């Protein structure tokens, strides 16, 4: 990955943004110009860095937990069609519940600390990983399954040695989605009740119409997301390239 691959899209984004502001005559209280946001970013760098750090911790925790739990659930569900029929609708259900209905329940259980935020982030990250991985686990080429059956594979070893490795690309597809959703998941988690983090800062800035600050925080979040995604992409490409060669 060359540095130009990072800079070119950034320039494109800036150009689009500036064009939106100029051509569409966006009022600054709706979409401030890049320069204004950059200035705010610089002026409030200490503030933003402090909150970004909090969010980053939540993101990484949510990602580790969400991907881990997603992995485990997908494998567990792949074992049993019965469990799948019973549990999958509930997973789907969980994705249909809006934050504001969930927030009071989560805080009642987990309080206002880090836990309820991570729970929220997890709920968002968990689903795409489980869903994409499970999909792939259920698509193991039947010939391999047959060969393994003849060899007397136990259910668990068949899963571990054949179905999981065969489904690796599917898991990685889910993981890539999760990496993208993790930061917004953490931010939404912060709406559950927080006094720190980029989500808090954005909501505060928005509520108090400090749009430049909000966009500065948003930009930080977006850059965090893109870096995470670029990193994950790179790592995943390496893994897949080495896999069959």
């Amino acid at each position: 990955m060359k540095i130009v691959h990072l800079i070119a899209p950034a320039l494109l984004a800036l150009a689009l943004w500036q064009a939106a502001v100029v051509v569409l005559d966006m009022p600054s209280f709706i979409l401030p110009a890049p320069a204004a946001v950059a200035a705010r970013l610089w002026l409030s760098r200490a503030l933003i860095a402090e909150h970004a750090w909090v969010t980053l911790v939540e993101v990484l925790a949510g990602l580790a937990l969400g991907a881990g739990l997603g992995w485990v659930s997908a494998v567990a569900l792949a074992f049993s069609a019965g469990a799948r029929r019973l549990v999958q609708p509930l997973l789907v259900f969980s994705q249909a519940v809006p934050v504001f209905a969930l927030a009071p329940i989560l805080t009642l259980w987990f309080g206002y600390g880090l836990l309820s935020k991570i729970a929220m982030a997890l709920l968002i990250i968990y689903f795409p990983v489980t869903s994409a991985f499970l999909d792939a686990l259920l698509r193991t080429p039947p010939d391999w399954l047959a060969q393994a059956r003849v060899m007397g594979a136990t259910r668990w070893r068949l899963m571990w040695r054949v179905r999981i490795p065969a489904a690796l690309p599917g898991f990685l597809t889910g993981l890539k989605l999760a990496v993208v959703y993790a930061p917004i998941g953490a931010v939404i988690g912060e709406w559950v009740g927080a006094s720190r983090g980029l989500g808090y800062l954005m909501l505060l800035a928005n509520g108090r119409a400090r749009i430049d600050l909000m966009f500065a925080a948003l930009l930080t979040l977006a850059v965090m997301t893109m870096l995470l995604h670029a990193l994950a992409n790179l790592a995943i490409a390496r893994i897949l390239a080495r896999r069959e060669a």
Partner: protein
Amino acid sequence: QDRMTVILDWFVNPDHGPIIVAQELGYFDEAGLEVEVIAPADPADPPKMAAAGRADLAISYQPQLHLQVAEGLPLKAVGTLVATPLNCLLVEADGPIKSLADLKGGKIGFSIAGVEEALLTAMLQQGDVALDDVELVNVNWSLSPSLMSGQVDAVIGAFRNFELNQMEIEGVAGKCFYPEEHGVPSYDELIYVANPETMDADKIDRFLTATARGVQYIVNHPQESWELFAGTSAELKDELNAKAWEDTLPRFALRPAAIDTARYEAFEAFLLEAGLIETARPVSDLIAGIEAGTSDAADAGQ
């Protein structure tokens, strides 16, 4: 030291001045309280948390309390934080809306709080406009932007101590139609609520007394108190909060423990007439410390 949890209505802002100042100046310590202040993102949550016993005290809005009690939440008002309405119907000062009558056929933005239809019906009546004559749009997160960008003609739910200043900072002059001047009974915007079954009246008492000292300090030392407030957190120190501080200062309840039962009675009647509640409850159902049938008590919190 008794531990105590207080949930604000939203993130910390100048509306919470007395609590923050009391905390900073150690008034809670002196009252034997160790107060944990929690700032939620959704104003609908705090009363639920208080009702569920997750918090000793929550900050809410008087109109909400009426609705919540009507829906059976175990909540009562125990004190007052801001003793006037803050809500207002906001229009552009230089815009075409000079009077409420001009809103006929217009668009009004709102951010759902539950009572805006009632407020609007009463206010528009004064301009001889029916609710059906205007189009209501829930603009949720963009009250003032939707107004400033001309997408709506007015917004209800704007706070006079914030949105007005905010528009000024953006270079657009705003104008408020105040509900209490246009047919809506006056009410207390921010109040303290607690679950009457589980609350510890003594702790609450001490808490309110400490915040009363906070208000006192703010009124006596507006500048120092602002600096004290702004010093608690980097994100609070800005022009808007400074202006809002000034505008909020005269609206703090000087006697937080005092509750004006007449206001509750009147507002309950107002909501009944607007059809938002089905029966009018006695104030003893809304305010703690009032015996049933003694609706003429003036101060409940002594």
